């Protein structure tokens, strides 16, 4: 019995035993790891920074205006001699935009996704999909101008029985935002539906299901988490949309109203039209911008939490 020394590279009578230790420090690996960590941390830091920069001025705001008054008040008149900070009118304005946007984007986006994923020949899909993605990238100000100059007059023409007043309309703004997010909803839903395994479709076909039954009762339920994610993305986009709303719904009329033919100010339109060079820091109007911004942030946050819950609940796990 003799103890054996492991010597790398020594080829004696025994097997050629090689070193098991790292040949170097692997500096590159460490640098990459550090860079990746920085990138990941940066996004968290930036987000936190945004939240803090929103919250700090809002703290000042809420020292002068009570939160209850802010959240339940129905008169939004921040620039008046005797200002009133009831945020409900512009919240309702934002929700009206979301409502009308989703009334347009959900049915059209979903139908087009079902067509693209289940019915369209490969050639058609390959042609349409990039177009959709380009449409997603059109500057919203251009779409706003289109809506202002074409869509608004057209819709008025088509619905003379509605009580149109003034140049602006929150309903038309919502419809325009809906058009704007159709490509997003359609593209993301299409991706979700196409990732459903072919074997599930075959299983349904083999029992005599029609193409529509396969799409609606097998593919859509299996892809529902992705489809809901598409809707949530759309809603978040609609909540945050500013340019279209400024151009089509106007920014000057913060009345509490559910009339889609009226021009109504939304939260984003308020921020967008108020945060100009004219405003001086430290005034209550200045702080009110941040309070509205913080509330917007909260709304999208709540939306996302609800969406995550919904997705978990209705998700059909495959594989």
């Amino acid at each position, binding site marked *: 019995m003799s103890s054996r020394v492991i010597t790398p590279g020594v080829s004696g009578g025994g097997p050629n035993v090689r070193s098991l230790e790292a040949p170097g420090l692997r500096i590159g690996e460490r640098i990459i790891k550090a860079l990746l960590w920085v990138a990941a941390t940066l996004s968290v830091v930036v987000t936190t920074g945004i939240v803090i920069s929103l919250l700090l001025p809002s703290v000042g705001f809420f020292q002068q205006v009570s939160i209850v008054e802010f959240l339940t008040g129905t008169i939004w008149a921040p620039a008046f001699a005797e200002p009133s900070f009831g945020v409900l009118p512009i919240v309702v304005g934002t929700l009206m935009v979301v409502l009308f946007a989703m009334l347009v984007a959900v049915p059209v986006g979903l139908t087009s996704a079902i067509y693209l994923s289940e019915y369209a*020949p490969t050639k058609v899909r390959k042609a349409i999909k990039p177009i959709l993605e380009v449409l997603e990238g059109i500057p919203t100000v251009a779409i706003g101008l289109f809506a202002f100059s074409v869509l608004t007059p057209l819709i008025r023409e088509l619905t003379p029985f509605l009580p149109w007043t003034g140049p602006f309309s929150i309903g038309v703004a919502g419809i325009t935002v809906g058009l704007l997010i159709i490509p997003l909803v359609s593209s993301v839903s299409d991706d979700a539906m196409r990732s459903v395994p072919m074997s599930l479709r*075959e*299983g349904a*076909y*083999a*029992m*005599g299901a029609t193409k529509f039954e396969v799409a609606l*009762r097998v593919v859509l339920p299996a892809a529902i988490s992705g489809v809901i994610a598409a809707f949530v993305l759309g809603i978040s986009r609609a909540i945050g949309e500013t340019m279209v709303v400024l151009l089509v719904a106007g920014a000057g009329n913060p009345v509490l109203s559910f009339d889609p033919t009226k021009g109504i100010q939304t939260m984003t339109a308020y921020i967008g039209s108020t945060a100009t060079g004219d405003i001086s820091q430290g005034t209550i109007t200045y702080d009110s911008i941040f309070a509205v911004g913080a509330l917007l942030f909260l709304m999208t946050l709540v939306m996302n939490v609800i969406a995550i819950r919904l997705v978990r609940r209705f998700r*059909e796990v*495959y594989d």
Partner: protein
Amino acid sequence: MPKATTGDTVTTDEEASSSPSLGVSDALGEERTRQASGVNTFELRNVNVYYGDMLAVSDVSLDIPHNEITAFIGPSGCGKSTLLRSLNRMNDLIPTARVTGDVLYHGVNMYGPTVDPVQVRTVIGMVFQKPNPFPKSIYDNIAFGPRILGMKGDLDEIVESSLRRAALWDEVKDRLKDNAFGMSGGQQQRLCIARAIAVQPDVILMDEPCSALDPVSTGKVEDLMLELKEDYTIVIVTHNMQQAARVSDLTAFFTVAAMDETSNRTGVLVEIDETRTVFSNPKDERTANYVTGKFG
């Protein structure tokens, strides 16, 4: 036997029994030991299946008898799955797939102009290689077919009887509302068989139904096949020759052959006969080599 066309109706027993089963070696007058009903569910005549310009299966003619198990065996790429999928028009789902020749189902040309592929698949069901339950509850998996077809009758009863028929009821009766993905692979495959049975088909096609299963589950599925053949015509594609030998009444051996005029390779039928003949006394040397393991 005259070539049946779309207009023809169901082949009579007399006709069918007098028709020479192509390639079957009972021509010598040997008595069949198999309890043949004499009725053919499928009669294929000069069937070619193409994917685009590629000929995947060439000139297949064979008969598949009623309420028996017919196995398709052969090496990979011999077109046995492709041919199986032409029996319930699953190939229609592939845009480039094309079938020529006659695929007769009880004398009716399945590719005739008045035949609806969706209707075909309610009569001729299919079980796939990998278990593919829907990501729904066990109950909803079975109820899916009856629901979309608007079948009359108590849904609960249909679900129970289908699961019983697939020898799965006792294992799952207490968790019908659970997601089917919580079942084992073998249970999932039997669920898929139960699902196929639920729409009361006439034929069940099985495309390598046990290739993803362990031996115990395979045994259960094979037992199930033997039971089911009392009521259904079963056609099974398998890579497992022991399986073909264990369960099938007839075996068709396919292989890959080079076409004369081109270098393209295509699937051809070598022979179809009673399973015991194919395995013990095959007519063709290629079959003998394959079943004895010398090739493939």
